[in-house]
Structures are given as structure tokens and as C-alpha cells.
């Protein structure tokens, strides 16, 4: 579904992506993990051509998104829904209008129907009451969820999530995990999720890739990922109390 071929990218004078190869299959929930500044957001942005590789290519299905322009690019982008790291809501319209915006702009649906759909999606992310609130009145976690509702309202084939659960309490985080998982199981949506939250990744990922210094250093199913011999992966796992010996045993030993 999405394929990276030896993608290189320099930003601000330093190498951010250093030959990334990835292949994401249709219907996957593909997780990308890695330290802050590892290039996760940059990787996501290449999938919708908010960034263009210096070398290498990114494919979406049979289309090369890295060279697409004009109408073709628009067509590729319309297959995506994107949740940005900072939610990227427009601050002069209400939360509900933000959610409905893609439909208002892209379709001829009447406005009352758009409102109904927007309310549905807000309810799905646990914000049924927030339709008329302005983004500035919402907490960071709530804005995130509004952004998520906006990303899925057009029923896209592929959804990109940049840290969907950061800044959310654990209970809401698990609810968002379940939502992402149900999109895959019920609608066959392909998801690419960037996160620091390994618990989410291990719970719902079909595969996990770890980025470090612009390279994919580990890639596999959650089971394979945990067993990866890579030092960075093990550090990352241990930092969240996930070890081969088991979390509780480790905690008890402290």
C-alpha cells in the first residue's frame, strides 16, 4: 500500500532520513516508534508529500507520490486522513465545524447532514458534547481527538496518526487504541501510527518499525519486535518496563 524506496532527506543541514526502506501492506496497522527527533513525523509527511525526498521514492499503491503534482496529487491525498502531531485545528471555527470541514469542502452534502456526521465522529472519540466548543477551549488531548475525528470523517483508505495518544490519560489512550483497531477490523482501513507509547504498539500493531538516526533498525510483528536483539530496541522496551523477563518481575526487583 505504501512503499519507501531508499528515501533520503536532509532538513536544516542534517540528515534526517538516511535510506529508509519500508513496505506497508493494505489493512495493516503499522506502528513507527523511535526517540524524539528520530524522523518519525518526517517519515509520515513523505507519505502525503508534505515533504519530498532528496533521493529515493515513496509509492502509494501504484502511484509515486513523491513526483505527483496537481490533480494527481490531490487524488492521492484524498485517499488519506491525517492526524497531525499538534492536531492542526483551525482556531476560528468550532470543534464540530473543524471535523465537518473536509466534507463541506470536498462534497456537496447538505450542511445538516455534515453536522450529523461530525457529531457522530465526535461521539466516536468520546467528545459528543464538544461540537460547539472552540479549539482554544479544549485541552490538548481533546484537540487531538477532534483532529482524529476530522481525519476519519471522509472514510479514507489510509489514516496517518502522529502520536494519537500522547497527552491523553491511560483510559482514553486505550479507547483510542481500540478505535484504531476497530477501523482495521471492521473497515479494513490501513493505519500508520507514530507513537512513543509501546503499550499501544504491542497491543494493536500488525507490525512495528523502529527508527533511529534516520534508519529502520528493527521491523517485525510485536512478538518479533520484543525479541529483537537490537540494543536500541531493548533500551526502548526497558524504558517502558517491558522486558523479556516481564515487567512486574523487573519492578519488584527495584
Amino acid at each position, binding site marked *: 500500500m505504501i512503499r519507501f524506496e531508499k528515501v533520503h532527506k536532509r532538513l536544516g543541514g542534517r540528515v534526517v532520513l538516511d535510506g529508509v526502506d519500508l513496505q506497508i501492506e493494505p489493512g495493516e496497522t503499522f506502528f513507527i516508534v523511535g526517540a524524539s527527533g528520530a524522523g518519525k513525523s518526517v517519515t509520515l*509527511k513523505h507519505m*502525503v508529500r*508534505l515533504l519530498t525526498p532528496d533521493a529515493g521514492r515513496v509509492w502509494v499503491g501504484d502511484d509515486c507520490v513523491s513526483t505527483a503534482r496537481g490533480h494527481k496529487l*490531490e487524488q492521492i*491525498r*484524498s485517499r*488519506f486522513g*491525517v492526524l*497531525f*502531531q*499538534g492536531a*492542526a*485545528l*483551525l482556531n476560528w471555527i468550532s470543534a464540530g465545524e473543524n471535523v465537518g*470541514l*473536509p466534507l*463541506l*469542502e*470536498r462534497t456537496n452534502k447538505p*450542511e445538516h447532514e455534515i453536522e450529523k456526521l461530525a457529531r457522530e465522529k465526535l461521539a466516536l472519540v468520546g467528545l459528543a458534547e464538544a461540537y460547539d466548543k472552540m479549539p482554544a477551549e479544549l485541552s490538548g488531548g481533546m484537540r487531538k481527538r477532534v483532529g482524529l475525528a476530522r481525519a476519519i470523517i471522509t472514510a479514507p483508505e489510509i489514516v496517518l496518526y502522529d502520536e494519537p495518544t500522547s497527552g491523553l490519560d491511560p483510559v482514553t489512550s486505550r479507547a483510542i487504541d481500540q478505535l484504531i483497531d476497530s477501523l482495521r477490523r471492521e473497515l479494513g482501513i490501513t493505519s500508520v501510527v507514530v507513537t512513543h507509547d509501546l503499550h499501544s504498539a504491542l497491543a494493536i500493531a500488525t507490525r512495528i518499525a523502529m527508527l533511529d538516526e534516520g534508519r529502520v533498525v528493527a521491523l517485525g510483528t510485536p512478538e518479533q519486535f520484543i525479541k529483537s536483539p537490537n540494543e536500541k530496541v531493548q533500551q526502548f522496551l526497558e524504558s517502558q518496563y517491558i522486558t523479556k523477563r516481564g515487567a512486574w518481575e523487573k519492578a519488584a526487583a527495584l
Partner: protein
Amino acid sequence: MNAWARVGREVLLALRNTGRALVMLGEAIVNIRHVFSRQNRYETIHQMFVSGIKSLGVITVVALFTGMILALQTGLELRRFGQEVNIGTAVTVVLLREMGPFMTGLIIAASVGSAIAAQMGTMVVAEEIAALEIMSINPVRFLVMPRLVALALIMPFLTMYTNAVGILGGAIVGYTQLGVSFTAYFDNCTRFAENKDLFVGLFKAIIFGVIVVTVACHQGFATTEGAVGVGRSTRRTVIIAFLTILTMGYFITRMFYK
């Protein structure tokens, strides 16, 4: 890099930016056909309100004192020839032709222009522009066009208001400082000023509005490097818009008055 190379580089960069700004302006003009679509109609009216009504306070003060200064300066000179009754003409013609649109343009550049640049810049930094692009919403149609239409429509009215308040200021100075009665003043105002003076001034006002929106949106969209970048875009907007208004004002004057 030696000094000449640097100057050359700056000139080329300025040319490139001007080109890009003009391309954006062209795109915004093409998109005016969408102004009544359901996505845009409220936005245009809202922008007219924001840019028009909210600047009225400053404009009133500036216009009043501009008219008063004009009346005082010309009045003191004219009085030496016993001609102080003609301040009406002097104030009116200078305001209609030049100072009215010019002062209004500068105020709008400093207030509305900087606000637009800051808003666009913040939207770039917060990835809102990127989000619009992903949703296949053309930022030029969605953000630039309504502001362009709003300012192009509202600038002539603001300028007429500036003119009116300025002329009133002249009348006050004429009456209190120079002993020119209100009837003599207003009679004198309308005697020599031509319709052409008014219309050229209003034409200027529209062009100045277009300049402010174009510069502000272009600079805002070109913002990089977070909050610092937003500050830089805002400052540049005000400077570039000032200079462009000044030079374009001269050329428009030359075009109509030879």
C-alpha cells in the same frame, strides 16, 4: 561572499519573492469566482468586519490630525496673502488625491497586514496550512481570496471616511485658529476639488488594499522557524507593504496627473 555578490543575491531573492507573491495574487483573483460558495461567503464578510470596523478608531484619530495639520500648515502660509479661506481647497485636494488613501493604506498595513501575516505564519507553524493541503483545500482560495476581496471592497470606504474626518479636522482648525467660518470653508472645499481627485484616490485605495493582503499572505506563508519566524514575517510585512504603497502611490499619481 563579497559585497557585490551579496547585493546581487538580495536583488535576485527580492525579484523571486515578488514573482511568487504576484503568482499568488493571480491565483487569488482567479478564485474570486468562489466568493459566494458556502465555504467562503461568511469568511469574506467576517474579514470586512474585522479589517474595517476594528481599524476605525485609529483611522479617526489619524485622519482628524492629518486634516488639522494640513489646515494649519497651509493656513499659516495662505494667511500671509490674506487667502486663508482657501484652506478648504488645499485640505480637500491633498486629502482626496494623496493623503487620504496613503494614510489609510499605512494604517491598514500596520494593523490588518501585520495581523494577517501573524495569523498565516502561526498557521504554517502549527501545520494548519499543511492540514488544509491534505484536505485538498487550497489555502489561497480558502484564506487569501476572502481577505483580498474584503480589503479591496472596504478600502475605498475607509478612505472616504478618512477624507471626511480629515476635512472636518481642517474645518475645526480653520474656525478656531484662522477665523474661517464653517460655511466659507465647506463652500471652498467643494468649489475646486474635482470628481477625478476622488476617484483616483479611491482607485489608489483599492490597490493599496491589494498590496497589503498580497504582501501579508505571502510573507505569512513563507514563515519558517516557529514563533521567531512569525515575528520576522510580521515585521517584513509592515516594511514591505509601506515601501510598496509609497512607490505605487507615486506611480499612480504620475499616471493620472501629468
